[in-house]
């Protein structure tokens, strides 16, 4: 899925990283607990979170992620945007809540394995 598709599905605002919207990503995770995100490395490329501090950006960077989505209209600070730009991260912001945002992306096929996709459809 292209990051631009995620933006459309979540009706999200692009905070930074517009130049990477065409990049393809194949999996995502949603959590407010950064240690949990760090515990399960599985090449997730997108982090959805309601937590809003610089450690979110750093966590995404450590995990080689491509995109961070702030749910519930959380607004990243200038410092966070600066860090995100430094590591070529796309930052999106949506009014949707975590559950709905994750559900929509999952239904659209992000992070669904081929066998699961068959079951869903």
């Amino acid at each position, binding site marked *: 899925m292209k990051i631009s598709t995620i933006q459309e599905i979540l009706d999200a605002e692009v905070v930074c990283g517009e130049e990477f919207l065409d990049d393809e990503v194949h999996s995502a995770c949603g959590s407010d607990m950064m*240690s949990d995100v760090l515990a399960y490395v599985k090449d997730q490329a997108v982090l959805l979170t309601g937590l809003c501090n610089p450690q979110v950006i750093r966590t995404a960077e450590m995990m080689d992620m491509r995109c961070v989505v702030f749910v519930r209209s959380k607004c990243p600070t200038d410092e966070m945007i600066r860090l995100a730009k430094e590591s070529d991260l796309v930052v999106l912001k949506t009014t949707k809540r975590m559950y709905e945002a994750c559900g929509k992306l999952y239904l659209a096929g992000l992070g669904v394995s081929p066998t699961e996709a068959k079951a869903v459809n």
Partner: protein
Amino acid sequence: MDEAVRFHFVVDGEDFTSAGQASVQVKKNLRRLGIPPEVIRKISIAMYEGEINMVIHADGGEAEVLVYEDRIVMILTDRGPGIADVEKAMQEGYSTAPDNVRSLGFGAGMGLPNMKRYTDDMKIESVVGEGTTITMTVLLA
């Protein structure tokens, strides 16, 4: 002993928001040395969790990263309160971090287990009231 490339960092304990700076720098340096990305990721996560721990528990500390031909060694040293029960601290979910740390996305008792998970060897030397030294090794073979 083969010659190592050595990086040294001081981890500032004053400011939680700046925690992770050393890990970011290590990541950049290792990339420049041509270390494989999956190895870099393991090292940066282990180092990042260690850095966060030093900021949360020990008011900062020092980190040394040694890059050998066949392995990378990270040595994190602090003069914090020490770990009273290392075995307990290694259990997932056990944490002595204050509540305000949890609202920042950490303090879930995953730090030390994560550090062990991503390294090939981890040694904790801790004296209550004096400090803690954690030595982690990741093999490059």
